[in-house]
């Protein structure tokens, strides 16, 4: 009787799953409260921070750094490799690129916003609790606390935006609003306005990798929503930890050097 019951359950669940149309994807282990476990230290392995579109390698802006300062190549992380700028906004992107050594907020150690924080060349850590999921970024100590309860409204614009999250199956979906207009998507001048709305999806694809997707919407700058996607890799070395990257010090000469007392 037991066996028949068990196999019936199996059949029933299988029927249910097939009915829902699920393909057998990787199923992450669960946290103690039954949610997909995304805890860990993660990092993107690409050159998206240089340029989210496909690009060949290129000389860097400072010849004194030679090959060390050169831009690495990349296949791009934008689906379709096209960013649908409105015509006037496409011109602004070109202007940004031409003046990027003056305008890129990363040079000044300003907080990178979302999604750029995800693919900075430094790791970030997910600390997953029930009501909140914290994403702590090594770059500039930037941080987000994602509310996993009923969505709340942002009290004010900020650099890292306001994040509300929920689960869709094994995917963590984070809705990010209220970012100010001062961040860029990369070092190449891809930008947005303060109407930016980002929806991120973090899906475990294996024990040590996540699929990361972000849909970007900003009707003041783009003619339609567009998407970026990339894998995120777990730091599996023993005792991996985020270290301090308090970069204000590294940006001060750039920002205030001209105000230094002479002699």
């Amino acid at each position: 009787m037991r066996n028949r019951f068990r196999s019936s359950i199996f059949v029933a669940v299988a029927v249910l799953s097939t009915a829902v149309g699920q393909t057998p994807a990787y199923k992450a282990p669960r946290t103690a409260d039954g949610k997909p476990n995304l805890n860990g230290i993660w990092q993107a392995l690409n050159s998206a921070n240089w340029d989210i579109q496909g690009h060949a390698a290129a000389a860097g802006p400072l010849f004194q750094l030679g090959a060390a300062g050169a831009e690495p190549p990349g296949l791009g992380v934008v689906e379709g490799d096209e960013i649908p700028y409105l015509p006037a906004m496409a011109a602004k992107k070109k202007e940004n690129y031409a003046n990027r050594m003056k305008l890129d907020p990363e040079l000044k150690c300003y907080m990178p916003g979302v999604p750029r924080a995800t693919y900075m060349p430094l790791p970030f850590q997910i600390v997953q609790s029930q009501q909140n999921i914290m994403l702590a970024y090594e770059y500039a100590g930037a941080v987000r606390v994602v509310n996993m309860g009923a969505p709340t409204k942002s009290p004010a614009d900020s650099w890292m935006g306001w994040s509300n999250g929920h689960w869709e199956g094994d995917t963590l979906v984070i809705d990010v609003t209220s970012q100010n207009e001062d961040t860029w998507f990369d070092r190449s001048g891809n930008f947005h306005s303060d109407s930016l709305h980002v929806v991120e999806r973090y899906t475990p694809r294996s024990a040590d990798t996540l699929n990361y997707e972000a849909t970007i919407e900003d009707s003041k700058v783009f003619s339609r929503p567009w998407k970026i996607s990339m894998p995120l890799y777990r730091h599996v070395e023993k005792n991996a930890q985020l270290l301090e990257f308090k970069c204000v010090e590294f940006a001060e000469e750039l920002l205030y050097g001209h105000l230094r007392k002479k002699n």
Partner: protein
Amino acid sequence: MRAKLAVVLASALFAGTLSGQALAKARVKTWVQPRTPDGQPDLQGVWTNATLTPLERPTELAGKQVLTPEEAVEFEKRTLQQVNSERRDGGNAADLNRSYNEFWRDRGTKVVAGLRSSLIVDPPDGRVPPLTPEARKRVDRAQAEARLHPADGPESLGLWVRCITRGLPMVPGPYNNDFQILQGPGYVTILHEMIHEARVIPLDGRPHAPKSVRAYMGDPRGHWEGDTLVVDTTNFSAKSNFRGSSESLHLIERFTRVDANTINYEFTVDDPTTFTKPWSASIPMTPIQNPIFEYACHEGNYAMSGILGGTRAEEAKK
């Protein structure tokens, strides 16, 4: 009666089997394409395509597609004499301009088997087709610029002199005409000794990289047609230049191992913005005993500072 028929039939069969065996024995003597563990035709090894056969048919050989054995020997002797940088028959200025000595050279000692008078097989005249008008303008402008500014800075000099790339296709030159082919599941890699450039060619049918991604050696994609490896390369950088080619260059290469010691390497150059029609060449590759050596071009590029420094010194004199 039946028994007799049976014996006759049996004998006939037996005889037939015997001759089948004989045929099989004969077949075993011919070359069989070796295969890699995952079933690809095995092209692996270290190969050279050095040859005295020129890319283009010399004008004096117009109309002559194939040399006679005597003509070939004569051609080889004459060529080796002409290119010999160790001859001392012109005085100091001539010696200086010849540069290097034959120790560095590895151009081969023979014309190709088959004695074709050019590596180019199409068009039939064995010569590169004419440039398009826009390419002619482009090339003329570049040459004029080079005459006016032969050595203003590193950008004035060619990609080989700058040690950036030896480029494609694999046309033999005066030295280091060596290539190592290595195959793994789903990939063929070709390591060009000069300038230690490795092409890692996927065979899984994936599309080319996005148009925004350009490269000096382009973006290769391979597949097998029977026992021939076909490599399709696009996405060339605008700074690449094969006899005037542009970033529109579409290069198709074919590698067929025809016996233990020969890979037939054929390439087709298709660049409608540069050449008035596509053209093809065929160059045999034969094995060499040496490994691939490290060609540390840039690290030993004294020539660059010599050229630029020398030019600056001459300008200072004026």
